Each structure stands twice: as C-alpha cells, then as structure tokens.
C-alpha cells in the first residue's frame, strides 16, 4: 500500500518539478520589480506581490531513505492543506514546491539551492539524515534562507538559518537515561549502528553514566545494515546488564530483536530502550519481537490531547485508516505551523524579520505546547518514554512534567562539560 502512496506522490511531483523549472526561469526574468519589493534582504527573490506564497518541501522520495522521509512529506502536505483551508498565511495561499533529495546529501544541497534561488521559496521544510542537514546548512547560510528540520538528532549544532523542530539530545536521550535511573537501573549495555548518531549518543551516555554512577557493561557497534547479531546478543546476555540502550538504525533492528529474543532475553528480563523505532517501524520489526520494549520520543500516536486527536483523524482521513503517525511526522507538521506563527508575528515573509520574531513563538502542537527558543533555534519539547503495546502502537509510560528547554550543546549539564568542545 505504501507503493501507491509514493507513486501517487511522485507523479504530480515530477510534473511539479518540471513546471517549476519553467516557471522559475520565467519569474526570474519577468519580475525583478517584485524581487525588489521584498524589502531589505538583498539576495532574496521571494515574490510577495501575488495571492499566494511559495514554500519548498525537500525530502527523499526515492532511494533508501524514502521509506522514512515520504512519511514526513505526507504530514507536511497535510499541514499545508489545512493552512490553506483556513485562509493561508498573511492571507496568502501556500504554493508548495516539492523536491526529491534522493537520499543523497549532495542532491539535498543542490535541490535546496534550486528551491531558494530559482523557485524563490519563502522557507524550506524537510531533511532527515544528519548528513543531508550538514550538506544543506552552508546553502541556507550563504543565501540567508530558512530551513525547518523535523527529526531528532545528535545535537551540538545551531544555525540561525535552521529551525530544529525535532528533539535534541537533552529532550530524548538524557530523559530516557533519567527514566532508567529512576527505575533503579544500575548497569547498561549500549548497542548501536556504526555511524555518527549512535557514536555521539553513546559518548553522551558514557559521560552521563560516569556522573550518575551507572555502570556501562559494554558498547557494541554493528556495521550499518548488518543482520548478524549472534555475538552481540551473547555479549549482552553474558553482561547481565539491567537494561540495553539501542541506537541501531533501520533494518538492523529486526535482526537484533529477533536474535535478542531467541537467546531468551525479554522486555521483562532485560528491557531495551530504543531511540529510532517509532510506530512506522513496528510492523517491519515484527510486533512479536518488540512488544513490551521501551522507546524514547516526544510524541506518540496514542497521546490524549485535543490537537493530537485532530491531527491523527485528519491524517487517517487523507492517507488511509491503516497509516500511523510518528514523532518525526508530528515534528514536520508542527514546523509548518511554527513558520506560519513566526511570519504572522513578524507581519512579513522577510527572513530577517522572521528570525527576529521567532523567539517565544508558540504552537499548540499534537505533542503539547511548543515554544521556539530564539537563542539556538530549537523548540521546547516534552520527552516521553513509551512502551510498545499489543496493537503495535506506543503507550506513554512516563512523561516529563513540563516541556524541556532545548540545550543542543548540553551547556546546562555539568557532566557534559567536555563533550561540547
């Protein structure tokens, strides 16, 4: 069924891409006047004279990341549709121009450049992997344009041209560790895929553990995509740790959880906390294999807030009752509304004015009220620990009492002093 969605998304997309190349060329030649009308920002060519305003979506709609990123495209499309139905932004309808990053960081950088310079979009939304974000960052900084990035990441970054609406480490990993400590966890085993995010995350976990007296009994990495976990699960089992912290990525989770279970380890005997399995991934891993295991995110489909009920109902109405919502999808949905709120506060689409207005902007998101922190361009989020239930959805078992301020460089944590260097 996913196939039809991607295909359905792809056809108009291809058409839109072609149309915008033509339209883009036209507008650059045809309306220097309107470019001038966008006030101070010298390089911007955003056309604010018409009844509509262009925004860009950039996601991998093909390649290995399409499986995850097409869901973000879906929830962004839903937000755009809702905003247009309720009158648009500053009275202008959103005209979405979508680009395919094709799971390649260089492609993301190139397409982002096109969205900014050729399509003259007022803001761009999307991206998933840290490598795609790192590739786009200089493009947005050089053009003084805006990117809204919706996925939890390893932190240690802040750009005035990027708004980070997913969790940073102190809104996901550290609360998960606090939860484990609260549950009496004295020892941990770390398992992750061998690349940037797990290694950075585990550095933070090591520092936390050293400060809080939690013993780390092992730290194992499997090559990306690896399906052979016999030795790792043997080491985990032998360590007799209280819990496992899992930063594996993608399909490795399937192999890991199957083999974990097959040596007799369960959610009761040794719980696993995962930071990259959401509602979308559960069917592929197999409910049998992960039921009862823990996850750390800021949003679950089962959250009982009015905004979330509305979001889930609208999403299922648009994309089908068998689809589920997840944390990155919610963060992407929220990002479009946050931009709308910033623009309305600034009463302008101008990037400088939007940046100046950003601090303190709020939105009643499905995950709860979020507030933009203008110092680091991240947002407040409410960390939640979830347990995978028999339906394959995730129930909240612990939630932070209040939204947590973003701290991408972990400056407020004494034990993390050496990490940010």
């Amino acid at each position, binding site marked *: 069924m*996913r*196939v039809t969605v991607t295909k359905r998304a792809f056809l108009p997309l291809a058409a839109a891409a072609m149309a915008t190349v033509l339209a883009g060329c036209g507008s650059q030649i045809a309306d220097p006047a309107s470019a001038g009308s966008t006030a101070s920002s010298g390089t911007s060519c955003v056309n604010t004279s018409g009844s509509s305003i262009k925004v860009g979506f950039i996601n991998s709609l093909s390649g290995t990341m399409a499986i995850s990123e097409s869901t973000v495209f879906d929830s962004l499309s839903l937000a755009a549709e809702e905003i247009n139905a309720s009158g648009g932004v500053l009275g202008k309808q959103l005209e979405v121009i979508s680009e395919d990053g094709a799971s390649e960081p260089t492609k993301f950088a190139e397409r982002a450049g096109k969205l900014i310079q050729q399509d003259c979009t007022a803001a761009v939304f999307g991206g998933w992997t840290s490598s795609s974000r790192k590739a786009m960052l200089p493009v947005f900084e050089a053009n003084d344009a805006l990117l809204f990035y919706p996925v939890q990441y390893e932190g240690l970054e802040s750009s005035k041209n990027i708004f980070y609406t997913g969790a940073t480490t102190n809104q996901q990993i550290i609360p998960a560790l606090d939860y484990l400590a609260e549950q009496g966890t004295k020892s941990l085993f770390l398992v992750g895929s*061998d690349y940037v995010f797990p290694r950075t995350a585990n550095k933070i976990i090591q520092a936390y553990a050293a400060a809080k007296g939690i013993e780390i009994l092992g730290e194992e990495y499997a*090559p990306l*995509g690896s399906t052979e976990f016999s030795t790792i699960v*043997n080491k985990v089992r032998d360590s007799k740790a209280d819990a496992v912290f899992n930063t594996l990525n993608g399909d490795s989770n399937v192999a890991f959880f*199957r083999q974990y*279970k*097959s040596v007799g380890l369960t959610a009761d005997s040794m719980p696993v906390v995962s930071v990259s399995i959401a509602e979308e991934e559960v069917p592929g891993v197999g409910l049998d294999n992960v039921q009862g295991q823990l996850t750390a995110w800021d949003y679950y489909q089962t959250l009982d807030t009015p905004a979330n009920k509305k979001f889930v109902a609208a999403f299922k109405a648009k994309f089908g009752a068998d689809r589920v919502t997840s944390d990155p999808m919610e963060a992407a949905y929220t990002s479009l509304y946050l931009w709308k709120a910033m623009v309305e506060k600034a009463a302008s689409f101008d990037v400088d004015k939007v940046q100046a207005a950003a601090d303190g902007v709020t939105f009643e998101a499905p995950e709860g009220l979020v507030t933009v922190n203008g110092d680091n361009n991240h947002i407040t989020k409410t960390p939640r620990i979830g347990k995978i239930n028999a339906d394959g959805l995730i129930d909240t078992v612990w939630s932070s009492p209040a939204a947590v301020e973003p701290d991408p460089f972990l400056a407020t944590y004494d034990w993390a002093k050496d990490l940010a260097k």
Partner: protein
Amino acid sequence: MELLIGQMFAGLSLGSVLLLAALGLSLTFGQMGVINMAHGEFMMAGAYTAFVVQQAISDAGASLLVSIPAGFLVGGVLGLVLEAVLLRRMYHRPLDTLLVTFGVALILQQAARDIFGAPSVDVRAPAWLQGNIELLGAPIPLTRLFILGLSLLCLAGLVLLLKATPLGRRIRAVVLNRDLAETSGVSTRRSDQLTFFIGSGLAGIAGVAVTLIGSTSPYLGTNYIVDAFLVVVAGGIGQIKGAVIAAFALGVLQSVFEYSTTASIGKVLILIVIVVFLQLRPQGIFSLITRSLA
C-alpha cells in the same frame, strides 16, 4: 564455558548461513564461471516467497515448510529465465556477466520495492522455533539450529545429486571439459540450464531461511552477496567441499574475532585473513583439476 559454547555455536550457525548463501553460488560461479551478482536478489525472492506463502497459510509452521520448496522453485525459475534470456549469450565472458547480473540485481530490487513496498515486511517464525534449548547453560536458539540442519540437508542433497545421479555426472562432465562432453553426446545446453536452476533454487531456500533471523526487505540480498563470494573464492572455485570448509571456518573465525574485538573490526580482520590466505594459496582451499585446455 557457557559463553564458549554459545560462541562456538554462533560461529557454526553463522557458517551455516554463509554455506546456504554460497552453495548455489558455488555451482553457478564455481562450475559455470558466471559471476552472478543477482544471486543475493534470488535469496531476496525466496524470502518474499516465504512472506507471500505466509499470507496464504496463516499457520507459521506450515507456511515455513511450504515456503522451502516454493522458495526453491521461485529462485530456480528466476535463474532459469536469467540464464535463458541473458547469460547463455555470454559464457566465457565473466566480466560481462558481472555487469549484466548487477543490472538484473538492481531491477529485481526495484521490482520488490514496487510490489511489496520499501519498508521491511514481517515473516513470523513458527512457535516451535521460538526460544532456545540449553546446552550446558548456553542458550542455543532453535531458529539457528533449524538453519544449520537445513543447510546440511541442502548440502547432502546437492552432493548426492552431483555424485550419484546421471544428471550430476553430466554436470561434472561439462565442467571438466565442455567440448569433450558435447562431443560425447551430453547436451551442454540442458546441463547449463539445470545447473542454473539448482544453483538459483538453493539461493531461494537460503532466502527462506534468513527470514528467520533478519529483516525481509528489498536490500536483503546485498547483505549476503559479498560474503557468499568470499566463501566460494576462499574455498576454491567449483569445489563444494572447499565451500563447506570455508563457510564454517569463516563463521567461527568471525565469531571469535567479533567476540574479542567488535563487529566492525571483526569484519576487517576476516577480510585481512582472506587476503593473506589468497596470497599464499590463490586457488583457494581446493582447486579443480580439469583436462580442458582453458
């Protein structure tokens, strides 16, 4: 002790997965000289066969038992088609077969994405394969035991076929000296087709087996193809007994390396061992003594 047994078994079971993946390749690459990069995708086809069968037969145990012959057929037929449409035009041109079959691999991956979707699908293991038995305190996962048994069974079947049947004799005759076999009245055409059918069918069975340990996704084959080639090359091209020894030796070595270092370093060490070994013995563990002029 407990850990030693656990690790020994991990090595053996990794070896059995490698053997299953390499057995068919040893036939098509080793005996026919075709570098079939789509071998991994034939495994993937077998894995998706298990998924489709499970949609039809909801009992996981029965569906697994049906999937094994079904996977063999699906893999075999794909191999037969590949041989008939493309490969028979390029025997004796191994580099061309590499490129062509790599293209076929990409096509099959995309086909799987279009048919089944990009996310991995869940093939459930039967209840009687869940859990483990204890051997002196070490947990021996039943799924891995099953795969070990299955690979030994496939091995026995293949050896029997090659050594004790007229078909096997014909295949061996063609491998040893194609022209002489042809002159002696052996249909090399038919022998090629059957060899390819069996080799690809074995990949299908391997695919069904690995659904028990990992994910069933369009990328499944890419996880195994390199290791399978390593086994065939290290074992000696065209040598089934070499492939068996190489598979289990690599499995056990890998688990030892991985245990004493990490998964990534273990992989590197294995590659170093193979490179050094092939320097000393370029022909692999065993080499084929043929009377052909080539």
